[in-house]
């Protein structure tokens, strides 16, 4: 079976002359959750918009489940659902009508039972006859999701689904995404929140300046690039780091009360036992010891800085 989404050598230059995407290659497998991470202006929305047909491209080919988005436009598009970054709704319409409209627009016969199911899933059923203008921002966002799901797409794009959404709603959103995945949907989301990618994604793509810098299995990425840190809280402050500890490149913090040692989590020999041994030889006593693993955020910042 062909990949649910396959992108080759995609390029986009806006009429302003700005190159928003260059040489993007990406292949997405069925049933995965893929997180596209990147700073403001990286090209995330442009990438999604081109796949969904709302922005033209200037180079490359794209196919959805093996259907070229130009030559087999209808087959490709009916498989896609899009929840854009900005809320855009007809404020005078009702929830039910706007969701029904979307289903029809995508060429599907009415299915009241299915529409009811998604509205219930999104806690919108009680509001089905309310006009959009009467809804809160969070509800409007869920209406956008309901519309995108209305035609039973196989591939769902969520462009910053949790931007400006409170913590509870964000957890709900995550739960929903997992539920959709369990039903076999493939989900591509963009986000600034690294915790979101870390929490949900199977694979992560990092995009910056229109280039896809890296695409990797999330766990492998964390293992490969992750740094660990050992933080020692000392009993008595140190003025300087003794020369005997120079080989560990330690950092002294908090008025000499804290020693921080960063090391590669993958390394065979982390150097940690040797450090602790040397310290006891030198008579440096510590009150507390803490190790932490770097987050995707650290990895991300690291990558983007390197590319810049």
């Amino acid at each position: 079976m062909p990949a649910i989404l396959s992108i080759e050598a995609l390029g986009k230059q806006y009429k302003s002359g700005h190159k928003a995407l260059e040489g993007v290659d990406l292949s997405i497998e069925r049933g995965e959750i893929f997180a596209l991470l990147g700073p403001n202006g990286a090209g995330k929305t442009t990438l999604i918009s081109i796949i969904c047909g709302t922005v033209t491209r200037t180079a490359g080919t794209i196919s959805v489940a093996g259907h070229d988005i130009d030559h087999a436009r209808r087959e490709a598009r009916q498989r896609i659902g899009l929840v854009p970054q900005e809320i855009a709704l007809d404020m005078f319409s009702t929830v039910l009508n706007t969701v029904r409209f979307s289903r029809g627009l995508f060429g599907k016969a009415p299915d009241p039972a299915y529409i009811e199911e998604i509205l219930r899933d999104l806690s919108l059923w009680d509001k089905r006859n309310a006009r959009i203008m009467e809804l809160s921002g969070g509800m409007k966002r869920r209406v956008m999701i309901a519309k995108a799901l209305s035609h039973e797409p196989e591939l769902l794009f969520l462009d910053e689904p949790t931007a400006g959404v409170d913590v509870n709603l964000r957890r709900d959103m995550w739960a929903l995404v997992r539920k959709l995945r369990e039903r076999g949907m493939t989900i591509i989301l963009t986000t600034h929140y690294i915790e979101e990618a870390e929490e949900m994604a199977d694979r992560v793509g990092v995009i910056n300046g229109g280039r896809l810098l890296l695409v990797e299995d999330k766990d492998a990425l964390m293992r490969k690039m992750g740094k660990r840190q050992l933080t020692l809280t000392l009993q008595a402050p140190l003025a300087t780091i003794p020369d005997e500890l120079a080989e560990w490149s330690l950092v002294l913090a908090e008025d000499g009360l804290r020693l921080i040692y960063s090391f590669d989590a993958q390394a065979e020999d982390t150097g940690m036992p040797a450090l602790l041994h040397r310290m006891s030889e030198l008579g440096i006593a510590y009150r507390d010891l803490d190790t932490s693993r770097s987050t995707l955020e650290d990895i991300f910042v690291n990558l983007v800085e390197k590319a810049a």
Partner: protein
Amino acid sequence: MSGVNLHGIWAIYRTEMARSIRTVWQSVATPVITTALYFIVFGGAIGSRMSHVGGVGYGAFIVPGLIMLSLLTQSISNASIGIYFPKFTGTMFEILSAPLNAVEAVVGYVGAAATKSVVIGLIILATATFFTDVRILHPVWMVAFLLLTSLTFSLFGFLIGIWAKNFEQLAIIPSLVITPLTFLGGAFYSIDMLPQPWRTVSLFNPVVYLVSGFRWSFYGLGDVGVGASLAFTAGFMALCLIALAWIFRTGWRLKP
């Protein structure tokens, strides 16, 4: 799914019609009141001092022109707002991302706008019968002109809606071009009544052909031949279709 996206066309058509029905009183009251005013002023006050035009009372004479005036302005404004509205609210993304081709989208939007125009045209016709004695010599042609004009100018309105970048631009063509052309296009007089060179100048006004053909279907008399009227309307429709095909192919003013 293959063939035509009928559900998609129907979804657009229905939603557009629902939008009109939300404002049904405005939609119906405005043309009825305007028509009544025209009859009181032109048909009653002025028309009583005017001789018959080509054997038809002045009140009856202006009926086709009045209907045409409404058809043009209504078709253009309905269709242009219909497609401008999703651009304005941002909901256009959904139309652009749907498995819907240009023809299907146009059938939905233009079909709804034209339907509304035809209904309003018929309402005006019905209103007119309260004020004057209306005869229709060629009912089939009357309906044909009604449909053809509504469709053509709804297409034209659709183009304006895509072209417009703000509400001012949306209003400018109907008020600055169509209304003057209609008033000067023989809606309220026969161009035979004009002195030269205005009579010849009028022949360059496209609305003359529309009004003339439509009036012919009522009373069997027109300023220009009915064939010329038909040819003009069909030609203008073809121009609009060509422009639309180009817009959808290039994404002009629709996609960045």
